[in-house]
């Protein structure tokens, strides 16, 4: 029997239809808008592009966006892990309540989140007023940007790590204990490594969300050029000034960097899975 023969025989019916639909959908909804953006950007000459990127204001905004996003994603992965662990492994009163609260940042309009955060972290706000005497400015500062990004990225980390913890092999932990490992050794050598792929996915999603965030950040950030201005805001203000070329240039840089980052993390995932035969 030829190899293609068995492949054909094994393929589920409906392959052509579903693949066609998927390709059409991905093209229409994702590839086409990106192509349009690239087309716009291609009108930008290389010198113009480089000029835009050389601008200190653009550089500062890109630095802030990527720096704060990576940091927020790291924070979210850590605390998301702790929260997911608590929700899965322990039974306590109010567990379901907390479980559904976690999803709120998913559902809230980002502008509402921004205003809510402002109410708390503004210099006169609930928490902000107590931090001012310590010299900590939570609003109109890079810290404010970070707070907003942590807020909106948290559910992504929790919701990707949670199922992985639920599916953990309890017997593997018992096996570890029977082999003489302490609780800490079992956790660091058996439990944590099995959760690494899920944590990486959680990190990626939280990062992707943070990179594109706009609504919840702009209120608390204050948008001071060179200090608290994120890239998406800069794009919007360029568009307001009718500078489509400038907006496209920044967008292309964002897009390339984001795509590269996601691809890199995918590659790490793929490498882990291939190495351990889990694909």
């Amino acid at each position, binding site marked *: 029997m030829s190899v293609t023969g068995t492949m054909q025989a094994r393929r589920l019916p409906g392959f052509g239809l579903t693949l066609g639909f998927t390709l059409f959908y991905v093209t229409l909804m994702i590839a086409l808008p990106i192509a349009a953006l690239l087309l716009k950007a291609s009108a930008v000459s290389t010198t113009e592009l480089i000029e835009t990127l050389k601008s200190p204001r653009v550089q500062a905004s890109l630095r802030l966006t990527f720096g704060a996003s990576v940091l927020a994603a790291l924070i979210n992965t850590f605390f998301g892990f702790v929260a997911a662990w608590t929700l899965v492994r322990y039974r306590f009163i109010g567990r379901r309540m907390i479980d559904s609260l976690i999803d709120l940042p998913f559902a809230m309009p980002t502008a509402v989140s921004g205003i809510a955060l402002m109410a708390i972290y503004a210099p006169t706000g609930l928490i902000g007023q107590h931090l001012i005497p310590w010299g900590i400015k939570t609003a109109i500062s890079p810290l404010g940007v970070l707070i907003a990004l942590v807020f909106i990225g948290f559910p992504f980390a929790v919701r990707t790590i949670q199922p992985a913890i639920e599916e953990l092999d309890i017997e*593997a932990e018992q096996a570890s204990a029977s*082999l*003489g490992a*302490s609780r800490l050794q079992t956790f660091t*050598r058996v439990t944590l490594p099995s959760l690494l792929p899920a944590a990486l996915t959680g990190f990626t999603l939280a990062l992707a969300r943070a990179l594109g965030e706009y609504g919840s950040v702009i209120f608390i950030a204050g948008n001071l050029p060179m200090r608290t201005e994120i890239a998406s805001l800069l794009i919007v203000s360029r568009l307001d000034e009718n500078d489509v070329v400038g907006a496209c240039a920044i967008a292309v840089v964002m897009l390339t960097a984001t795509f590269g980052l996601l691809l890199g993390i995918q590659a790490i995932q793929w490498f882990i899975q291939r190495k*351990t035969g889990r694909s």
Partner: protein
Amino acid sequence: MSVEVRQVNKTFGSYKALQDVSLKVNSGELVALLGPSGSGKTTLLRMIAGMEVPDRSQNSEEGKILFFNQDVAKWSVSQRQVGFVFQHYALFKHMSVFENIAFGLRVRPRGQRPSNAQIHDRVKQLLQLIQLEGFGDRFPMQLSGGQRQRVALARALAIEPKVLLLDEPFGALDAKVRQKLREWLRRLHEQMHTTTILVTHDQEEALEVADRVVVMNQAKIEQIGTPEEVFHRPASEFVIDFLGSVNVFSGRSSETLKGESKVYVRPHELQISRNSIDHTSISGQVQKIHRAGASAKVFVQTDNDQKVRVDVPMNQLQSLELGIGQQVFITPMQAHVFSPDYTI
């Protein structure tokens, strides 16, 4: 090392998993805990490993677990130094086969930890033992079920356990592999003589591998004995029924003058003939003949409407020239009689 369990009880909510169970496993022995699911055999094994805690009792002599006469009931799993093998292997999926086996040595406290070279030698030795040399760099997902279970066994043996506990180790494997691994386990046991307790629901496996078999049912031990003892001298109706197929006759035979007794006769303990042999012969009609197997299974419907299975050697089947609808006589050559239990 000997293992002893003294009068342990275990309840999960309102469900009784173990009821006043006592058992002693001698040093170097291979004992099988045999029973249907829900009989408490796995709970007993996990209790010996320290993964379950016996119910507390007022009497200080009850609920004890002794390793070589030392009470270990309060010891944690990691302190007991038992090798535990799970039905679904429970290998560490993110570690290579080599690292899986080395795990127990690597997690030892600094003072007792062997050097890297020593660990290397030990793992190599174990890979040889489980016939998986050259598989050290593979990952569990790249192995077959039988290979995975051998790795799990090597991992448990690496720590030189005082007791080896196997929970349905071959339960997830297909019949052929199971048979091979069973023989291999017996050979391994003869080399190492580690005290071993094996949980299984497969009576063939228990009878073939174990020095002694502990038959369990509904949270209690029904019988403890050598495979021969439990098979040929079953202590209860449950034991004879669980260990292979059996025909049940309600007391009509001359041996059973006590009235309501039940007579158990295994299919191979019945003789089939064209003519009546003696007063115990029962007449009937052949209903079905299964010829696949070492001996043929002949199903006979007796005159008082009972279905009986008789195992007939192939050559005898041929000389009898049996066919469907044939009138025959069946005569028990041996029988196990149990009088009804009035203790309720």
